[in-house]
């Protein structure tokens, strides 16, 4: 019997959900227009007033927000309530530019934690579980988000934060953790360390993992599931819209249910901004309809994915989003071809290599170069140079078939590519240095 955290919402009829969204949207647009001058200016420029928004069908009339807007409005330009009404901030890592700071009222925190509780429940979590949160705690939303959700569900919560992997495994064993929450790359590393310590999945009681905050592939899911002996669930979110829990996977593992009562999703053409029909790949856009402190309307996530209302066997009626193909700013254009790191990862794991790799893009003599360093498994090592070169050639061939461009593949020794305890760095694009 499938369990829900908020059954009334999670299994609500489409008509009721639409009515709820419309009611909340109308209120939210008025709240933003009255309290966020930055967005009011955008609406005025577009000639849209709050009165033009009567239901979700009018959503397309509103102007978009982009990350550039949030940077311009840094730090408080998007704040819609007095700062004294806020109880917390979180922030993006700022690796791609100026940080974005998001504000939360107590009500914002409560609703966010409900979203995370839905995810934990969908992964089979109950008050009987021991939930190990190995996302970073701090400005990053991962740790506190899942921590709050775990409390709500009533799990015994282990607030490990990331790092100190042997201690993670020791606590996992000593306290019988049943659910692990962290980034997929850290989950893979924990699995690897478990085996290095001479242990197997039989030595731990883990049954499920909730992994997100970075793109990962189906192949990586299977590899983590095997190394830890668990079912691995995807979770989606972004600091700009609260954090993890915007969408979550259920037992079907075929996409993530979006918490539509809080976030209205749209898919748009990233070039024209035009709303695309359901089932088309495009850029995901979210409108927060319940957030008080930091309510973003039509925020462009830069994540490319597809939405589906196909009936789900779990009984939830919430719309599903496919695993994002990649963030549009993760996408590299190499020799004119669009390349996502996830495509390369898929080939590596299919060909029996580890998910530890590093992509280096550079430009030599006005031509882009693509170099991929891949760790060998010890069993893949051969004494003969020609065997290793053949492995490199065959892997380069498989990647060329996938991407349409030829990479140079370099086999490297196991454990030589730096492991990540948070979001993994998979790509180094040196071309930017030349510009």
């Amino acid at each position: 019997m499938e369990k829900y955290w908020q059954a009334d919402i999670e299994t609500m009829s489409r008509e009721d959900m639409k009515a709820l969204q419309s009611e909340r949207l109308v209120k939210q647009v008025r709240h933003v227009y009255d309290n966020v001058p930055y967005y009011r200016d955008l609406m005025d420029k577009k000639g849209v007033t709050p009165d033009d928004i009567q239901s979700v069908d009018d959503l397309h009339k509103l102007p978009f927000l982009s990350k550039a807007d949030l940077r311009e409005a840094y730090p408080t330009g998007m704040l819609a309530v007095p700062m004294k009404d806020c109880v917390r901030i979180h922030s993006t890592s700022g690796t791609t530019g100026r940080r974005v700071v998001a504000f939360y009222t107590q009500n914002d925190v409560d609703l966010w934690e409900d979203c995370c509780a839905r995810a934990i429940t969908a992964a089979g979590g109950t008050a009987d579980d021991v939930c190990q949160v190995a996302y970073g705690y701090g400005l990053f939303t991962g740790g506190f988000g899942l921590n709050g959700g775990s409390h709500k569900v009533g799990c015994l919560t282990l607030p490990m934060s990331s790092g100190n992997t042997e201690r993670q495994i020791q606590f996992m064993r000593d306290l019988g953790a049943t659910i692990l929450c962290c980034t997929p790359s850290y989950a893979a590393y924990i699995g690897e360390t478990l085996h290095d310590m001479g242990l197997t999945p039989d030595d731990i009681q883990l049954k499920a993992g909730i992994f997100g905050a970075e793109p990962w592939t189906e192949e990586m899911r299977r590899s983590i599931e095997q190394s830890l002996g668990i079912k691995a669930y995807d979770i989606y979110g972004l600091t700009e819209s609260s954090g993890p829990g915007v969408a979550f996977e259920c037992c079907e593992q075929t996409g993530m249910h979006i918490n539509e009562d809080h976030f209205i999703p749209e898919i748009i053409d990233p070039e024209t901004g035009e709303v695309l029909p359901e089932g088309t790949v495009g850029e995901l856009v979210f409108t927060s309809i319940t957030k008080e402190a930091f309510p973003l309307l039509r925020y462009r996530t830069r994540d490319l994915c597809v939405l589906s209302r196909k009936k789900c066997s779990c009984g939830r009626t919430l719309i599903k989003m496919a695993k994002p193909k990649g963030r549009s700013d993760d996408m590299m254009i190499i020799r004119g071809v669009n390349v996502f790191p996830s495509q390369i990862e898929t080939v590596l794991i299919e060909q029996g290599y580890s998910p530890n790799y590093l992509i280096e893009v550079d430009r030599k003599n006005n031509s882009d170069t693509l170099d991929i360093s891949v760790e060998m498994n010890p069993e893949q090592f051969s004494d003969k140079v020609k065997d290793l070169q053949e492995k490199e050639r065959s892997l380069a061939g498989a990647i060329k078939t996938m991407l349409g461009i030829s990479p140079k593949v370099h086999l490297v020794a196991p454990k030589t590519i730096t492991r990540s305890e948070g979001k993994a760095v998979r790509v180094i694009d040196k071309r930017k240095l030349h510009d």
Partner: protein
Amino acid sequence: METIKQFSIFVENKQGKMAELTRLIADAGIDLRTLSLADTRDFGILRIIVNKPAETEALLRENGWTFKITSVIGVKVPDCPGGVATVLKALNEANVNVEYMYAFVNRTPGRADTVICVDDEEAAFSILRSKNIDLLTEAEAYDI
């Protein structure tokens, strides 16, 4: 069959890697009987014969090096014109392919001991034996 244990170690093409590896072996009091390095743009494979194979295996494993133990044949090649040619001719007659070969640092006057890795050890042994070509024993190779 008298094969010799050779360690083949994956060495990344990075400055200091080879020095690090040979220092590790030296500090464990292990003596290299002979060595050969195969190298490419990205990596090298260091092939070594040592005096203490069991200790070497444990040492490399503990320190996380990627390696394989390969069996090779040690041949006592006469140190005179045509010495190696005779051996290779014999192997060729038996359709045995040589993957790679390298020599020991010479210890016995009149003999150039050579390490040969072949694709078919059994055929190699029988042809070398039938041609009365002497092979190194493990004890001789490791110089125990």
